[in-house]
């Protein structure tokens, strides 16, 4: 463990403008510390990527941000308010799209689930469903069942359902991890365009370091056992990002080296 050699970043207390704030958050499950004192804020409209070696609690941190877990120490705040349960302003895109979609509902039906839940009258739903499906490039597939779709299409569908919530925050848990490289790059760009158009805040967990740099305004590296913040990088790459130009940018390569070194040292 070359951990002391790393610059350990301890964030200052949450400023008032933070949309999501982790205030000295700790999580102990079954006597085992999973997350130890993470302090972190995410500003509105920011894209924050979280990386780390397996077992560093990045998915757990995301679930804390979603309100699916409650911290055993400290607090998670959304717009200054302590999170006690999931909220509709915060949508979660799960990695396992195959499990997160309702297999007995068509693409349109799956999007409809979110609209029904927010209480949209059925007369308005059809138009909104068509609009959302078109937004994620599934315009011609409304009547298909998830099992009739490819992995990339299913993940698009899940994103459409999340957008139906009209969220202020999108929490994404390795959403493209199970997809092939080409599909993944396509979806990365689509996601950036969608987020730019909605202005949503994004917390994006990934194990793909290049993906983290490519997407993020900021990348946070977590250290494992127990999970804590080990590195924070601000990504000053021009937007809109480009799969070739951005990835060849000297700054990209510098950040990539820094992130790889960090992960290597933390393992």
């Amino acid at each position, binding site marked *: 463990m070359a951990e002391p050699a790393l610059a350990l970043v301890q964030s200052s207390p949450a400023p008032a403008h933070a949309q999501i704030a982790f205030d000295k958050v700790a999580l102990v499950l079954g006597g085992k510390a999973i997350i130890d004192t993470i302090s972190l804020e995410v500003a509105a409209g920011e894209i924050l990527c979280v990386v780390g070696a397996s077992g560093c609690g990045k998915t757990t941190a995301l679930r804390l941000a979603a309100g*699916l877990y409650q911290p055993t120490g400290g607090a998670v705040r959304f717009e200054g308010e302590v999170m006690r349960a999931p909220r*509709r302003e915060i949508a979660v895109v799960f990695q396992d799209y195959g*499990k*997160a979609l*309702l297999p007995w509902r068509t693409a349109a039906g799956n999007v409809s*689930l979110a609209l029904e*839940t927010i209480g949209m009258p059925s007369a308005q739903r059809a138009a909104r469903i068509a609009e959302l499906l078109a937004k994620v490039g599934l315009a011609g597939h409304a009547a298909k069942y998830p*099992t*009739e779709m490819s992995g990339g299409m299913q993940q698009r569908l899940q994103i459409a359902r999340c957008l139906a919530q009209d969220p202020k925050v999108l929490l994404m848990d390795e959403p493209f991890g199970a997809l092939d490289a080409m599909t993944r790059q396509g979806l990365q760009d689509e996601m950036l365009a969608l987020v730019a158009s909605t202005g949503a805040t994004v917390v994006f967990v990934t194990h793909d370091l290049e993906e983290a740099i490519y997407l993020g305004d900021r990348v946070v590296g977590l250290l494992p056992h127990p999970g804590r913040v080990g590195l924070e990088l601000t990504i000053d790459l021009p937007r809109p990002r480009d799969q070739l130009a951005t990835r060849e940018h000297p700054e990209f390569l510098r950040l990539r080296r820094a992130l790889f070194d960090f992960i290597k040292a933390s393992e």
Partner: protein
Amino acid sequence: MRWSVIAWRCASFVVAAGVIALWQLAADRRLISPVFLPGPDRAWASLLRGFTSGDLLTKLTGTLTHMAYGWLLASVAGIALGAMIGSSKAMRIYVAPTLELLRPLPVSAIIPVAIAAFGLNQSMALFVIAFGSLWPMLLGTIHGFAAVEPRLYEVARVLHMSRLAVIFKIALPSAAPDILAGMRLSLTVALILAVVCEMLAGLDGLGQWVLLSARAFRSADLFAGVMLLGIIGYITALAMGAAESRLLRWQAARR
């Protein structure tokens, strides 16, 4: 694809016709005394006579009514109880031993208890049929509710779905294949028990018709009744299958 389906359907009819032909042959050759085995011609004639001039229709509706009421009662109870038990782990742990004790109990052993409690009447039949056909549905529903993908419950939490919405939009559709499989099994059980109860309690129905025909050595009537029971079983199973494939269209997409 379509042609092979038609070909197989035709082949299955040929087999059925062959069995009837053999039956006719055995009866014509008097391999078995006509007192015990009427030919299909005599059984068919008796069936028609039963409907036109006899009370076979009343018997038929009697059996169908017993079967339907018992089965519906069991469905409602089985799905409601199963949903309750299946959606709570604590409930499953508490109730499972009791269920395991009751489930393998032969329903025929319950009949005397039911007769003692209700007497020889419709209530007794309803209780026995419902009790017997409860199990496949109860166990199917418990399993279906217990096997709901946990991720879907998280999706429901993130969406702030109400408890009722979670049951009707997530748990029930997810458990539907198991529930429908249970309902299909129960349908057969309900028919068997309807006949048994009619025989024992002398209730208006095909069970009673078959028993009385046998006792009076009216073998053609007996076979007409048996044939009718077979047809009921076949048609209800077909209807159930059609309902299943309609409700579970999404599963066909998976294959």
